[in-house]
């Protein structure tokens, strides 16, 4: 058996590749090693770049909100919409495996909300760019300043998938324990901002905020961290300022 190696002229492209000619002399099957050099998320990333270009063209600031289930992403959105809904033109894309419960919670705000369900009984545990592209296509981007994408509740997989956002914001509620930044470092590594949520519960818990902050710092020393409570309003001013600055940075004025 003979080994052959060929170099592809276009990385991972279906056109213009070298067509292998690997016929060994003599009998037996021929083996050809094709050099692919293809990033496994390349297809996703191409869709993400299209979304990013489209949002840039329309001056829309886009936030990808990530956390484990039940950390308070939707509650934070409700509080955010209450405060910013009159000043900024906001739309939300809700990612869930199933149900439109989150979209229904946001219905009273009268803003565009698009629900993506990745599928019942074990659908994708994250939003991928092709799905988000379909949802973005349904929005009138001329009428938007801010797009918030609430990802599927999961601290692992959503961290891997670029969906064309300007920044990933990771929420970690104080009820989840101090160790999560060490157990799920990638999401903290790729985030632009971390929000420690539900801090109104601190008097009732044995959790150490200092240890949470220390562990976030171990995962990503440069990451900006804010302590917030959607319920009491504590810390929301910093978060809203962060959003407003993001919107201003994209406004092109």
């Amino acid at each position, binding site marked *: 058996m003979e080994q052959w190696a060929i170099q592809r002229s276009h990385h*991972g492209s279906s056109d213009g590749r070298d067509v292998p000619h690997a016929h060994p002399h003599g009998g037996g099957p*021929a083996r*050809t090693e094709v050099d*692919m*050099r293809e990033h*496994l998320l390349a297809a996703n990333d191409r869709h993400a770049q299209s979304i990013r270009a489209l949002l840039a063209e329309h001056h829309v600031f886009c936030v990808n909100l990530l956390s484990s289930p039940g950390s308070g992403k939707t509650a934070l959105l409700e509080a955010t919409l209450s405060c910013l809904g009159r000043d900024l033109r906001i739309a939300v894309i809700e990612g869930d495996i199933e149900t439109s419960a989150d979209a229904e919670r946001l219905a009273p705000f009268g803003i565009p909300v698009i629900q993506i369900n990745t599928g019942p009984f074990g659908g994708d545990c994250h939003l991928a760019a092709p799905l988000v592209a379909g949802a973005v296509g349904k929005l009138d981007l001329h009428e938007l300043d801010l797009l918030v994408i609430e990802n599927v509740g999961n601290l692992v997989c959503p961290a891997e998938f670029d969906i064309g956002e300007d920044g990933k914001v990771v929420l970690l509620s104080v009820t989840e324990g101090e160790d999560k930044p060490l157990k799920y470092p990638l999401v903290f590594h790729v985030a632009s901002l971390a929000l420690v949520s539900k801090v109104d519960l601190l008097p009732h818990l044995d959790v150490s905020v200092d240890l949470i902050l220390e562990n976030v710092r171990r*995962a*990503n*020393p440069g990451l900006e961290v804010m302590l917030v409570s959607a319920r009491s309003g504590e810390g929301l001013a910093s978060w809203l300022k962060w959003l407003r600055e993001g919107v201003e940075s994209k406004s092109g004025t």
Partner: protein
Amino acid sequence: MHELSLAMSVMKQVELCLADFGPEARVVRITLEVGRLRAVVPNSMQFCFQAVSDGTGADGAELVIEEIPVRVRCESCGTEWAVQEVAFFCPDCGGSVKTLTGKELLLRTIEVEE
């Protein structure tokens, strides 16, 4: 669970690759480079790949997953090391670090037999 998406992405490339060969060609080995930061579980990846390649031209192919360690360099003092546990700052000077390797997620080669 993102292993399933990754396995499907590998299969897409396998189909593109096999299109350049004859109808009898089949894939015997696939090599991936996966950085340790990527949270890919090799056993899950193997399982998902078996599931999506079943009955295709890559049925029974060996999936070689090369795990790449997380290496960083201190931006202040230049020290380089492999991160064993989560601590992305310099143990010597406390400086911030640049990640050199560990984020790979690459389909490197597909070996075809015909």
